[in-house]
């Protein structure tokens, strides 16, 4: 979500920079390419996190979603929720 938003935000800046110099015809590709960059970036990040460690012989990160899902009586961090590694957690942390 963050990366997508950022790329959309950058789009107009880059379009202004290029378009002012080369006109709309020379810069319209920015309006298409940059908003789609998050897809490429996400794939790249996946590659960096998952593939490269394996090539180095390291263990891939363990996903413990199945284990977490059994611990229904405990609240968890919202940050972790937003990460894929804790996709099965469902509550937030509130102190009453």
């Amino acid at each position, binding site marked *: 979500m963050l990366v997508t938003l950022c790329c959309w935000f950058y789009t107009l800046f880059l379009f*202004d*920079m290029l378009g002012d110099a080369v006109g709309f015809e020379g810069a319209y590709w*920015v309006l298409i390419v940059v908003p789609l960059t998050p897809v490429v970036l996400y794939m790249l990040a996946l590659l960096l996190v998952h593939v490269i460690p394996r090539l180095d012989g390291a263990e891939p990160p363990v996903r413990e979603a199945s284990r977490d899902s059994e611990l229904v*009586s*405990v609240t968890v961090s*919202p*940050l972790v929720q937003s990460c894929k590694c804790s996709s099965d957690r*469902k*509550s937030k*942390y509130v102190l009453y």
Partner: protein
Amino acid sequence: MLNNARRGVWVVLICLLLGKSNALCAFSETELEALQDIYVTTSGQNWVWPPDTAGIPWNFTGNDVNPCLANWQGVNCTYAGDSCYVNALTLRSHNMVGPLPSSIEQLSSLTILDLSGNFLSNTIPSAVGNLVELRLVRLELNRLSGTIPASLGYLSELYEVDMGFNSLSGTLPDSFSRLSALKGLDYGINSITGTLPTWFGTLTQLQYIDGEKNLLTGTIPEEIGQLTVLRAIQLYNNYLTGPLPDIFATLAELTSVQLEFNGLSGSLPPSLVQAQSLTYMYLFHNDITGTLPGMLGTMPLLYDLQLYNNLLSGPLPAGLANAPKLANIDLHRNHLSGALSGALQLPLSLLDIDLGENWLTGTLPTSLSRLIHLNELQLQDNQLTGSLDGVFNASLLSSLTIIQVSGNELTGSLPAALFQLPNLQVFGAVGNCFEGPLPVTSMCASTTLRVLALDGLRSASTCQRKLFPGISSSHVITRPFSGGVAACLLQIPNLITLHLSGNGLTGTVPNICSTPTALPPSLIDLSLSHNALTGTIPKCIQERHWLNLDLSYNRLTGTLDPAFAANSSIIDAKRVITSTTLTIDNNRLSGRIPGGVNGYENLTMLTSNLFSCALDKSDLPTADKDRLNYQCGSDYLNLPYYVWLALAVVLVTVVSTAWWGEKGAVSNTNCVPATWRQSLQSAVTWIQVGFTATEDTRSNSDCPGVHAAYHAVLHDFNKVAAIAALCAVFTVLVLLPLYVGLSSQYSTVTHKYAWIVSAAYLSGVPPGVTVLVVLLVLMLTFLFTWRHACAHAGPVRGLHSERSTSGPSCADQQLSDKQPTSGTPVVRTADERVAATTLSFATRTAVYVTYVAVNFAVVAGVNTAYVYVALNQRGAAFIAAQILLSLFKLLWNKFGGVYLVRYVTSRMTVYDDTAFGRGFEQLKVFVALCNNIAIPCLVVAITSPDCFYHAFTAAPEVTSSYEYKQCYTYEPVSHGCTSFVMKTGTTGYSPPFAYSYQCSASFVTYYAPAFLYLCLTATFLSPLAQGLMYVLHRRAATAPGSLWYRLLNILLPPSLKPLPSQDSSNSTDAPANLVTPAHNPFQPYFDAAVLQVNLVTYLALILTFGAVFPPLSAALVLTVAAVLCSTRLKIGRLLTLSVDNR
């Protein structure tokens, strides 16, 4: 009478010879007294005596005063025996000031009374009616008021009455019907009311009626048709209504009808064409309907036909071609329709044609060239189509000086032959469908051209390409005129006005300043706005003081010359009276504003330019309406940033001193008060709570679940803060120097001020590619670190493993009671959520939609208001709006949005937003990002004129005017112009939307100051205020019933309130106010989700606004640290106290 005159002459001669005048002609004492009365009451001592008028000034000194024999100026006498009497008093323009005395009636022989052109005031004495021999009364051009005396109607000899240009009121006396000898009646330019009397018909000798510019109402009586000798009727500028009576058949001698500026309606009467002497027909500015009678062509003497601004419809009658004398036909602003090509079978005698502002269609016929005497052709604002090719034959139309075809749908290119017309002075073709290229060579070769109005050559509605058809009338220019502005156009020798705006012209403004005389002195009106011109404004154009200079809506860069508008000698004395206009807004100009611009009365130069000014804006031009809400350079950013910088230094110094002091020597010295030292140690302890999960969990065995969970949350938030810091460091160390370097080479403005360290105002392929690559690296870095953080979220998982085997926590135990009996924090577990998790899909959707809709409506509304203030309000209001917006963001993020969620949820089900699952958490993050980034950007993009405002709302029509000389009278035979009149031509066109490529810069300039205020508030103001309230609350606790304590109790966050001991809750001695509030979903001690959303929002701001303006990311990362630190302090204190209580 004649005999008396001859005798008088002899008497005068004899008197002159003998020197005994008095003895020969006795002047009546009563008449002398009457003259003296006139002299005295009208300030005779101040009369002026025109030297070209016969006679001597009046002199009443001496014994034997005889005006007749002394030949007093303006006094004519008649003689009867030995006596002489005044029979004519003619004192035109003698500076007579005051009322006319009634004693004038003593001049009993008076036949002519002509006192016109003086300053006579008060009423016309009715005693004038006693001058029975009076034949002519001229009192026009005075200051007479009151009514016209009815007694005048009894003067049977009266043949001319002229009382025009006074302030007379009332109605025309009915007694005038007796004036059977009356030939001329002039009571125009007064305030005469009433209707036109029917008794006009009895004045059979009447030759002219002048009643213009009065308050006459009613209709024109048919009885006027009985005035068979009537030659002229002038009743213009009244309130006459009704149709023109069909009376003209009998008015054989009528030459002039002037009934313009009335409310006459109906159609032209058939008998009109029977007025065979009619030469001048002025019926314009009425409501005349119907068609033009074809028989107009049969009127043999018709010379000037002016029927403009009526409701005439139908085609131009072909019969007009037969009018042998017709020289001027002005039918503009009617509803005439039909094809012009057929209608232009006009008489060859025509000198002026004005058919503008009608609905005429068709093309301009090539037969136009047969009108060889044609001087003026005005066809603007019709629906004419086709090309101008072959229409204008330069060898035939040698007299043609004015061509106006603006506001049509003419196509093709402008023909070169047009500008080869030997006398062409004015050419206007604004708002058509012309295409390029311009016939620059023939244009520049013309030595007669005075006015060249070629704005929006391709902007007519029929050839516009709409941006959003059906939604907005905004359009973009298609097939712009290539080639830019030719330098020679600015050097046409006698050119006064050159308008080329709205044509999509590219290139630069020609630099023709190589020689001092390169810019012709006649050129004083230049409009090149709404193009895409680049480069700087040439020096000689800047230095000239123009009547009108419009270079707005271009991409002009550079600074203004210190000698701007210094050369004022160009504008001649006549034109200095006209206000001068300078319009250079919506460009990319920067730097200081020279004082010379204040020489322009109408000034628009600030908007969307980046000028600098003094802090109090005193050096901004006062005539510019945007002066008060103009952001000079980066002034609105500078002040809060300096404040932030100073406070940041202080904060870092204090925190590091305290931290190292607590760790090191300070704690062991006595130089710090013990209470301070104790507080500092407590604070450090609180902050460190939850640092390590294992220690906390073990050490706080009474409540391990809370501490462990807090540790897990803290761990995650620390990671967010670390990522934010990393991104901020990247922006400051990589992007900031990059922007500075690029700005020196690729900036759209010469002076960028603080924006030099931003991605705003950059232009070019190299910066675009470089910034793209670096921003991608930033994104990749962020993604990698984020995923790395997620992948290694070990402590969180460890916590859960431990929790699962540790048995029921204290929180679980307390929760089972459902009613917390103490202030000990409680972790809500899934046990309580069982019911809520069964929410239906419809309920969840309803909550989602309500939450998102209300949130977006509020945030979008506030941001729209902010941008509106930024665009339209004065400086103080703008600063206030920035502060209010930052407070709104802070409060909405912290409370508004949170309470909205809880309220919506509680209204639909038992409060528990966790019942909505992980998707709702993501939705809240999404909404927060929208609130703080997407919506502001969208609002700016839609509402800012620098962005796409004019794409949705069409820019207002651009109107421009120019002056030109129009022939007023022609020499009858040669048709040469004998007199001119200055006319003002006004044209308008719809400017095309042209994106300025400055929208992204306005994101930064609008919102960077607002975010900086947000940082100031969140980093310094909010923690300081909470800390202050905490201290005050503790002090006020000694008097818990006081108003002050109650107020603080409301304001202080629950996490900062004191916790009672567990025993105290049961103690009857414990003050009730010290009991922590019971379970309240709207007042949690700590909501990690809120903090999570806030931190992610700050991180997003760093990655967006911070990335394009790195100084902001520095401020934001400090805010993240401050927020996290203050939260740890509060929650650490809470947990520590709760354990202590237990």
